[in-house]
């Protein structure tokens, strides 16, 4: 959730991820400042321990047990790798949810980013009204993650929904898309793409930082608008594209609300909207198999970490940093 909007990747050169790039902590710590530092940091540190670190360790432990919320702690059994074994070898619905999540992310994220970039290019001019359009396009990103909008979406793609009334205008006989296992997930993809505004705003900021001279030079060299786009805009924008891609992919993997609303918490029809997080919720809080759900959570965490690593290690082949920094 917190990642739908994000620290600004467009400000190249200032992006060192260090608390204080100019004065690193190697200098002498001023008298009393070390203590003050920990006083100010204490709420965060307590949160890190109590809300993040300890739960993570607890979840790692639980993933090797058969814990459910009903049995007392003394009767919890250590089952070794059984949960992981079951997940990989004996749980078709787990594999199914992996497939649903991958399909969702692989289709919705590129389309969403393409829409965001396309509209950003349309808006990247100084004229009156840009602010209004930009604001209107950003609105779905604020509303789209809510239960209310998911309810609207499900009804819009239902038999009597607005989408079918639009189709009937062009002579196509619609169907209740959200009840069709072949189409239910697609309606959720459309909902995700509809929220192209947040990455669009980040693209717009990136476009503003492309030096005008580069276009002028390209034009002098005879490059048409398409060549300019391919040879100037895309490379100059690649850090922002990379940033949006990482963020939206990780967000895409975590889609929950809309799938929950569409299926009333079941992942249906016929498991077609069983996103990974929804499967995790059902396993942990409906079936109360919290040990197994913890194993699922750890696999999810490792998968997200691996994907992030893959992004960053492949990024250096296509992400161009204009100030010559190699990241």
């Amino acid at each position, binding site marked *: 959730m917190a990642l739908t909007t994000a*620290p600004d990747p467009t400000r190249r050169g200032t992006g060192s991820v260090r*608390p204080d790039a100019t004065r690193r902590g190697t200098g002498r710590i001023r008298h009393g*400042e*070390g203590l003050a*530092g920990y006083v100010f*940091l204490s709420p965060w540190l307590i949160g890190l321990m109590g809300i*993040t670190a300890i739960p993570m360790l607890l979840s790692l432990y639980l993933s090797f047990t058969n814990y459910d919320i009903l049995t007392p702690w003394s009767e919890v059994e250590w089952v070794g790798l059984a949960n992981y074994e079951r997940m990989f070898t004996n749980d078709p619905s787990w594999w199914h949810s992996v497939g649903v999540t991958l399909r969702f992310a692989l289709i919705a994220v590129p389309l969403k980013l393409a829409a965001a970039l396309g509209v950003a290019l349309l808006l*990247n001019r100084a004229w009156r009204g840009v602010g209004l359009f930009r604001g209107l396009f950003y609105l779905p990103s*604020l509303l789209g993650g809510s239960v209310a909008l998911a309810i609207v979406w499900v009804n819009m793609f239902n038999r009597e929904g607005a989408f079918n009334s639009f189709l009937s205008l062009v002579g196509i006989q619609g169907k209740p898309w959200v009840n069709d296992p072949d189409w239910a997930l697609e309606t959720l993809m459309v909902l995700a793409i509809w929220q192209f505004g947040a990455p669009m705003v980040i693209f717009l900021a990136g476009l503003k930082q492309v030096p005008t001279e580069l276009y002028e030079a390209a034009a002098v060299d005879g490059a048409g608008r398409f060549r300019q786009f391919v040879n100037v805009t895309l490379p100059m924008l690649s850090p922002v594209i990379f940033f949006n891609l990482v963020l939206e992919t990780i967000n895409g993997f975590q889609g929950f609300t809309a799938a929950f609303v569409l299926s009333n918490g079941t992942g249906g029809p016929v498991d077609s909207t069983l996103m990974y997080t929804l499967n995790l919720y059902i396993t942990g809080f409906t079936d109360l198999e919290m040990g197994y759900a913890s194993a699922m959570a750890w696999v999810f965490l490792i998968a997200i970490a691996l994907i992030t690593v893959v992004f960053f290690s492949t990024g250096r082949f296509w992400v161009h940093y204009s100030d010559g920094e190699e990241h």
Partner: protein
Amino acid sequence: MATSTMPPPVAAGRRRAHSRSWPRLIVLLAIVAVVLYPLIWMIGTSFKSPQEIVNNIGLLPRTFTPGNYTDGWGNFDVSFARFFANSAMVSLLTVVGNGVSCLLAAYAFARLRFRLRGLWFAVMIGTLLLPGHVLIVPQYILFRTLGLVGGEWPYLPLLIPQFLATEAFFVFLMVQFMRGIPRELDEAARIDGANAFGIFRHVILPLSRPALVTTAIFSFIWTWNDFFRQLVFLSNLSDYTVPVALTLFIDSTSQSAVGPMFAMAVLSLLPVFVFFVAFQRMLVEGINTSGLKG
């Protein structure tokens, strides 16, 4: 701020701007129609009678049925007034918690020097990408063991993390903002005899208002819209927040519930919409610049 107030580059297109502006405008208006259609359809449907919801799939109702709003408001044993009050309380307390705790942590990271600061900062950046779903099961178990789930005041599991700066995004945002505050101001205050607390109180806190406002707005909207944590931690009907209450409508599949459901959906989005209208510039630009100047 510097980048947002700068006119965007007009690039190579200025000479043909006039011939281009019409197709561009038409495309943009078409996109506006696609973006706004679901929202207008939602409002229209919230005023339709049960018959019209089946028969009239157009944008607007033929006869206005404002009764959906009163029906929806009292559709469950607990009134929506209660759900809205619960949501407002959780959201506003989250605003307070995030504002205070993230500001303290950010000041430490941005201005104070202490042992292991680099390590803690790296850990904080690491938690930025940590999916919340991964921790929900153990957090639930811990809060339940402490007797806080469904307890006297069931919102503690939702609020305690927010008072402990676990929303790393806001910490990062504020650190970035504070880096832009001139260090000369710290030095001046130090010469005047201020210690780390004095500098925080008299220099950093007053100057961090823009970052605080951005944090407050996003905290409110995200918490107001949040569903996952509220679904997990709230179990009594009278404790429900608006998003959790809205899902109750889905259970009742009868056609007569659609109008009231849409009416409550519209109402639930109103606060976000009001924030959007009031702070539109800040929301859009806040992401990019105001809170994040390096």
